[in-house]
């Protein structure tokens, strides 16, 4: 199965920042194969929300 802990972290960040589905899609692309800590993931998601704010 998909690594539950990893995507649970993504879900948590998405909910915390209230990312849209399109921002979440871009976050998925941005993460790629990187192994990020929760804090790094949060910072990346914040940056994407700033870069892509309209939706």
């Amino acid at each position, binding site marked *: 199965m998909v690594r539950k802990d990893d*995507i649970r972290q993504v879900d948590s960040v998405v909910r915390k920042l209230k990312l849209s*589905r*399109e921002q979440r899609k*871009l976050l998925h692309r*941005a*993460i790629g194969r990187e192994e990020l800590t929760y804090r790094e993931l949060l910072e990346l998601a914040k940056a994407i929300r700033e870069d892509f704010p309209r*939706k």
Partner: protein
Amino acid sequence: MIKTANIADELAAAEIRSALQGKRCWYAYSSVGCTFAVDLGRKIPRDGDEMKVTDRIRKRLESKHPHGVSPQEQEHLRFKGESHLLVWCSWRIEDAKGPLASSDSQADLCEKVVRQLIGKTVQRVEIRAGWDLCLDFSSGLTLNVFPDHVGQEANFDGNWELWRPDQAYLIGTDLTCDVIDCENRRLRPQPQKGRWQVKA
């Protein structure tokens, strides 16, 4: 033989089939937790805001890979597929001899097998009850997707998504398909009842 005759939204299913059938995969990548995405069909230039994000991705990649970003990767940072399939839930890819990898495989194997879809064309699309998705690709590869994030306690709020230039189809944890437009407005509300039926 039992076949799915009616899923929650036949119209959405038909549109998804149409968006995938006959399309060639030109980019595929794996991401967090062995999730992955594929881009199919025409290459659509990314808009300005998306380019801001992909510029950020490019810088991150360049900082980690001193030899630079591959031409394929460069292309995907500038373009997106007319159909973008993003899989957050469980999946398996197999050929005629058997399974090659699944969402339970190690990350390196996931990446290697997912990338085998590049250059292949979707020859058959089947959507079954519960929004199970099966894509047969040229060269004999088959992708099976199994929505297993269900209910309010799901680890992740979603299963698989198909993105088109003008709208997206999102399979949720209640196993219904939300259709949203490019402004994130819901076009088709979830049906009130009758999530799916299996007919003999």
